[in-house]
């Protein structure tokens, strides 16, 4: 390649917040037309770095050059003018506005300077969506009515509505199906072919191998390696750079096949159905068993879990715990019967972000620590402490604010909530979402240990290897129907994906 100035160089970037040094000397160099991957554990500084790049945070020191010229990114608008667009992990769309209005928010095509030309925006939006391979999204629809995957496309369309030279994507694949991910990669390929650079952040190493060209690794606010070849750097080396130690990405050992066959099922699901979401499902869960639901987003996996839990009202069928049917559509009935849920959106559906670890753990068990409504806070805190200790949650302090914990430890707090409650059936929806690689193995071990202690676990994950590695039995879902049930050891990722896409594998 002919030597030309890199599109972007950042050197010696530091940024402190009260009490935290988020960035402590980061160097990053991005060439035009490349896919540059940014790797690091949660808390390594990735988010802060991309906010600096987006003009949302001002660095305390360090230099940024753009096409050879030193620049300051004083505001999001300044960054956008240079051609830097950012697609955040937490989508920043306005649900009450249409697709086109969101795409052109802040730079609407106007007549006479202020009259918005809605039709022009819609036409332009349709063109961008076409380019993204999603012509089926109507530019006039409200964003709030779209699925998560479609919203992601809209976010991307918004980025492309500017004259971009660099797109930063923060975990764009987290909410996507394998099929959608393929489409995403195709788009990324098109963009780079046009000379646009992409900074790609993901926890999934296999994705980085597929599309990345070079990798920069962040650890504790510092860039510990820059410009590694994405394809050929051994996984061991990357993980070691990220964690500072050698971590083997392994699943805990399973008990022998059929170990639970003689046990009485604790959870029975009979013909449970919700119109438009999933066809009648039958399911049995025995103590000590981990059963996985594999399927694409929209295959009904999370919906089944939430209906079993009573958070959605079924149109038919029933759920039995220890042979007793539950009142349909009642979370309280499910909880009382001994079912617990670790929901998909941890922050939105499970955690009280302003509260301590202890309050978050005890929230489902308050009555046990109260006499006539009066809380015995000592016992409550001690019990919560005991529960989080059993799951080796860090820090070992029940008074710590939950929001200061990493994703993995927040998830442990949610598990501790149900451990404390003494539940018999644990429903896990995407238990490792937003949990970094180092902490995943530990979480897997915790889940297996809970099962070994007699809990029945129903697991949903969009990561097929996770389902196959952790579960004993796997139910494969396709468009709301169970298309295959098998021992996890008899399946491999390829077969599951085949089933998920086609639903026609001969047994």
């Amino acid at each position: 390649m002919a030597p030309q100035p890199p599109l972007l160089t950042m050197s010696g970037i530091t940024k402190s917040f009260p009490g935290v040094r988020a960035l402590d000397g980061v160097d990053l160099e991005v060439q035009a037309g490349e896919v540059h991957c940014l790797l690091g554990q949660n808390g390594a500084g990735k988010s802060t770095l991309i906010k600096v790049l987006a003009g949302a945070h001002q660095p305390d020191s360090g230099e940024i050059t753009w096409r050879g010229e030193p620049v300051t990114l004083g505001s999001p608008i300044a960054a956008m003018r240079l051609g830097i667009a950012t697609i955040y992990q937490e989508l920043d769309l306005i649900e009450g506005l249409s697709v086109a209005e969101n795409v052109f928010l802040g730079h609407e095509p106007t007549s006479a300077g202020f009259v918005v030309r809605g039709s022009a925006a819609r036409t332009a939006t349709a063109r961008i969506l076409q380019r993204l391979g999603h012509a089926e999204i109507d530019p006039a629809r409200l964003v709030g009515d779209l699925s998560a995957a479609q919203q992601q496309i809209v976010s991307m369309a918004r980025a492309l509505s500017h004259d971009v030279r660099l797109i930063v994507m923060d975990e764009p694949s987290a909410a996507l199906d394998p099929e959608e991910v393929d489409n995403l990669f195709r788009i990324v390929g098109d963009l780079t072919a046009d000379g646009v650079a992409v900074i790609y952040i993901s926890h999934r190493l296999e994705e980085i191998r597929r599309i990345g060209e070079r990798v920069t690794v962040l650890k504790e606010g510092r860039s510990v390696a820059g410009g590694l070849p994405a394809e050929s750097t051994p996984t061991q080396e990357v993980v070691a750079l990220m964690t500072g130690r050698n971590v083997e990405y392994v699943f805990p050992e399973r008990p022998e096949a059929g170990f639970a066959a003689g046990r009485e099922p604790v959870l029975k699901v009979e013909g449970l159905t919700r119109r438009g979401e999933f066809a009648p499902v039958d399911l049995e869960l025995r103590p000590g068993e981990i059963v996985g639901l594999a399927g694409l987003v929209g295959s009904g996996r999370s919906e089944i879990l939430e209906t079993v839990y009573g958070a959605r009202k079924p149109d038919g069928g029933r759920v039995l715990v220890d042979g007793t049917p539950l009142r349909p559509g009642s979370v309280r009935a499910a909880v009382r019967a001994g079912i617990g849920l670790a929901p998909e959106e941890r922050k939105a559906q499970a955690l009280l972000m302003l509260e301590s670890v202890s309050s978050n753990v005890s929230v489902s068990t308050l009555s046990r620590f109260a006499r006539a409504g009066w809380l015995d806070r000592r016992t409550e805190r001690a019990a919560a402490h005991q529960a989080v200790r059993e799951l080796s949650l860090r820090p070992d302090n029940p008074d710590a604010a939950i929001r200061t914990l990493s994703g993995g430890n927040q998830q442990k707090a949610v598990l501790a909530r149900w451990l404390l409650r003494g539940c018999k059936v644990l429903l896990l929806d995407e238990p490792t979402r937003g949990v970094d690689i180092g902490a995943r193995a530990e979480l897997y071990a915790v889940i297996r240990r809970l099962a070994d202690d007699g809990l029945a676990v129903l697991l949903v994950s969009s990561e097929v290897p996770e389902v196959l590695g952790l579960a004993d039995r796997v139910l494969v879902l396709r468009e709301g129907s169970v298309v295959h049930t098998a021992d996890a050891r008899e399946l491999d990722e390829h077969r599951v994906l085949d089933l998920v896409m086609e639903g026609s594998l001969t047994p």
Partner: protein
Amino acid sequence: MTQPATAAQKEAPTSATKSTGGQEGSRRLGLRWDMRSLSLLAVLAVLVAVGGITAPDEFLATSNLQLVLTQASVIGVVTVGMTFVITSGGIDLSVGAIVALASVWATTVATQEFGFAGILFTAVIVGVGCGLVNGLLIAYGRMVPFIATLAMLASARGLALQITDGSTQIVTVGSVLDLGARDAYVLGIPPLVLIFAAVTVIGWLLLNRTTFGRRTVAVGGNAEAARLAGIDVRRQRLYLYLLSGLCCGIAAFMLIVLAGSGQNTNGNLYELDAIAAAIIGGTLLSGGRGTILGSVLGVLVFTTITNIFALNNLETAVQQIAKGAIIVAAVLVQRRSMHGDA
């Protein structure tokens, strides 16, 4: 929650208590004076100093201090109820109107025939009844609190006007009037102030020491998470508006004692005063964090300002501008301290 705890779980808390019991004792006992409460206390101290300097003879006179506290008591009781509602992520715009309705209903000729008990009972029941309607509409009718309580504001005021036909209903029951008289003061403290103190203490305990308080905070912090954790969010919401209505009923009774009459214009703009006091006290308008102490300090600050302005013969207009400035300043401080520990 009848889930029997397993033997292991029963044992677990005791052993953990032993290991951590010592260190937590001292930390958990005292009231937690956060920065905001301290700064409000400082503001209050400055105000007292200003009052003492600008009107040295009048402000610090026992009778004036008794007056300030009595005035703070009525709105203070309403604010305690409001603090619960706001902590749960709701709002109650109808408090002033409920106070008005309860005060006129409890002072009709028919009610007064039942004497002291009749008046007290009617005031409380009307308050709780209005709270019940609010609560049912919000919790089970899935109405937005702002709209449901706005509707209650309009109808309760209308009903109060209809009952009185715009006239002032003089209280003739001696025992009620006696409660406001100097003879009823306990060690120099007016009974109404004692009621306020009792409501404050009970409110503080309820919010900080009971499952009810914890659930209130959980619903306000994240209603969906609370629901998925097995909390009956709707019933909790119903109780909260009942509680607010109850506080309004008590406040209406206090107002009857104070004014010796019931009027349909009673409690005018109490909703705004109560919300403002709760907010400057440190309760988050978005829910999830509430402080009774802060609210009480907020009420005291506002009442003291009103008093100082009145003693110095300043116009109401100036007084209202000062109130507005204090609200802005308090929220700015609140934002800074939020950022500080984020």
